[in-house]
């Protein structure tokens, strides 16, 4: 029984007020395949090919400067943890940790903050130059500076809220539909299941896409700084 519609997102499963449901964040670690034997398994090859594709993509976005070498690793890890959390949250009774601002903001804010601090301290002129995009007519430049500053300021917010809101929206819809389940006749039940299957397909796509978007945007923000 739910007190309100959003109680599905409440952290529960507590042991002496120690919330254990956040452990679902680490569930992805159990799923990542390991190479114990010399010849890899099918799972590992699939996972490896996904990571390689991402690495190639991020490499072109980050650039080829010496200081950026190896930066793709952190963004791929970011992608992994967000994707696993999003996707596993679709399973019943698994807590979606990325639907909480605590989680998404903890990922986005330190990332953005470090980029800003590093950029402004080390490449101050470069950062100032970024505030005015290429090809702006001179008369618009002051306004562009304002707009770009504001856009920079809200970046952690957008990153965090985009992810959390997408997750919440999807889960909310599924929960709403599911709540009508107990009061349905058997014939309408098949309709419900079909609708939910369609929604789930959408949600799986959204889960993966949102994690990809998060990672790509972080990559772009990091490439801006350098």
């Amino acid at each position, binding site marked *: 029984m739910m007190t309100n519609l959003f109680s599905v997102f409440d952290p529960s499963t507590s042991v002496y007020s120690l919330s254990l449901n956040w452990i679902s964040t680490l569930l992805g670690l159990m799923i990542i395949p390991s190479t114990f034997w010399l010849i890899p398994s099918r799972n590992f090859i699939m996972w490896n090919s996904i990571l390689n594709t991402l690495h190639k993509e991020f490499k072109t976005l980050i650039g080829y400067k010496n200081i950026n070498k190896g930066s793709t690793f952190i963004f791929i890890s970011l992608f992994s943890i967000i994707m696993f959390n999003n996707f596993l949250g679709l399973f*019943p009774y698994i807590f979606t940790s990325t639907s909480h601002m605590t989680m998404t903001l903890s990922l986005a804010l330190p990332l953005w903050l470090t980029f800003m601090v590093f950029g402004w301290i080390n490449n101050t002129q470069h950062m100032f130059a970024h505030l005015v995009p290429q090809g702006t007519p001179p008369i618009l430049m002051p306004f562009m500076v304002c707009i770009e500053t504001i856009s920079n300021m809200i970046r952690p917010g957008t990153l965090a809220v985009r992810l959390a809101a997408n997750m919440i929206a999807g889960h909310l819809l599924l929960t709403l539909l599911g709540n009508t389940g107990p009061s349905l006749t058997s014939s309408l039940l098949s309709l419900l299941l079909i609708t939910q299957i369609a929604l789930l397909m959408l949600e799986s796509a959204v889960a993966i896409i949102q994690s990809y978007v998060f990672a790509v945007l972080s990559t772009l923000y990091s490439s801006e700084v350098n």
Partner: protein
Amino acid sequence: MLSRVAFRSDVNYQALQRNVPLMGVRCSQTASGERDEVNFPRPVRAELPGKVRHGFIPEEWFQFFYKKTGVTGPYVFGVGLSTYLFSKEIYVMEHEFYSGLSLLIMAVIAVKKFGPKLAEYLDKQVDAIEEAWKSGRNSEIQTYTNAIAAEKKEQWRAEGQKDLMAAKRANVAMQLEAAYRERMMLAYNEVKRRLDYQVERQNIDRRIAHKHMVSWVVQNVVKSITAQQEKESLAKCISDLRGLAKA
């Protein structure tokens, strides 16, 4: 029973039950004698995951039921347990249940539809990697097999040389034979010529002797014919002639 860790795979489990040392144990490790290998065997990492039925239920659970209840036992147990849980509302069918149901249907359809193709593609990748690992060894084996075949061919060729030599020898023998016969023929002809000459000479000698003898006899006879004898023989001839003419 619930864990899929390490030595729960069939082979090793049976080995454990038979109380024999596990196959993965190396001789160097048992040599020290520090550890009681029989009662505390070293766990071996299983190569393949444990057998499951219907995708996620372990085979051991079915084996557990088999002795007492046969093949349908676990299914009856499952149906009974779920009926109990649903009817007593111990497991409440609320929104999570329905989304779980939808997810289950979606997952089963996805696995059945895309599973085989994806498995085939991934298996090809695995095979490619395995092939790459084995390629060095295999190419060496191939090289040596080819070398062996080439060597055998060379040996066969060398044996052919023997036949060639025999043929050449026969050829030379034949030539010698032909030369010998030719010379034999020559010798025979020469000898025949010489002998023929001797024969001719004898013939000529005889002829000359004969001629001489005839001429001598004729001479002597002619010398010995008197005139009278001549007249008598002439008259006889004429009377014989007359007699023949009348006949």
